[in-house]
């Protein structure tokens, strides 16, 4: 048992799971379009693309870009972020796919 606990403690980041947030992409809109995340920690952002076309999750502020395919999910790690607002867009549909990450 002690050996098992010792081994488990070596896997560090796996057990201390990063906070996870999911946003959906529907009709070229992000839902929700405003997401709150804790500041100062890595966050696992899951983009669930429910549209029939691919979208590129793009953010200069978050320094991330990822293509998410139709009817599938993409994972992007963001942060650790300082408190503030970080805008992102769906680059292929910039007029409708917009959102903001609020770190606090």
């Amino acid at each position: 048992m002690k050996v098992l606990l010792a081994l488990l403690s070596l896997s560090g980041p796996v057990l201390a799971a990063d906070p996870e947030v999911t946003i959906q992409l529907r009709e070229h809109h992000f839902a929700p379009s405003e997401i709150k995340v804790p500041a100062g920690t890595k966050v696992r952002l899951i983009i669930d693309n429910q549209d029939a076309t691919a979208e590129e999750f793009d953010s200069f502020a978050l320094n991330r870009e990822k293509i998410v395919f139709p009817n599938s999910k993409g994972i992007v790690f963001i942060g650790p972020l300082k408190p503030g607002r970080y805008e992102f867009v769906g680059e292929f549909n910039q007029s409708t796919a917009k959102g903001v990450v609020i770190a606090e």
Partner: protein
Amino acid sequence: MFAAALIVFRESLEAALVIGIVAAATRPIARRGWWIALGAAAGVVGAFGVAAVAQSISQLAGGAGQELFTAVVLAMAVAMLAWHNIWMASHGRQIAMQAREFGRSIVRGETALTAIITAIALTVLREGSETVLFLIGISSSAASSRASLAIGSVLGLAAGGGAGVLMYAGLLRVPVSRLFHVTGWLILLLAAGMAGQFARVLIQADVLPALASPLWDTSSWMPDDSVLGTLLRALLGYQAQPSATQVLFYVAALVLIFAAMRRAQSRIPAA
């Protein structure tokens, strides 16, 4: 239409600048135009191939397939550009001297071409696959907007290509004695920029830590999406809000490649 133009412009700019710089850097080498065209064409074919399997690639490695693939392509391109610069550091003076001989092109210089043509193919493949996926995405839009999106894309591609042509034309005005020095620096900066991008995609996939992020924020005086910001991004790897790890990789690539170039140069026996 403008949005499509801007997206395609940004994607094609880096590849166009790499081609323009390389075309100028290899000026005295015989038939290098054909080789460059071949490299670019291979990149275009590769871009379609990658776009076709992009979804499958994306699902590899627990969802990090896209980032890992991009990282590998970037690493290979950095290696090719570094190899070219190091090779030129040890052979460049010979080539420049021979180039000044009236009407002579260097056939032997083709050994230097392999690395640089591969770098072109890899860059066209990387930027091209994103462009292909974008075009596939917008082709399913309503017919009414498809025409303006198509026009925008062509305009964006033309603008990107135009920037590459301007870069080439500008470099041609540099005297041959200085040309290799100037293009050497431009290629070094391109390689460093790619090293920074390599770090960025690995941070995104949680393979590397971001460390201080952002290390600085210059978005108020040089935003990423401004025209100058876009140009500086393609040429220098500029970012308004980079992570510290990115900057580390950028500086490390600059220092290591430059050091290797100096070492290669110092090994040439005195004439």
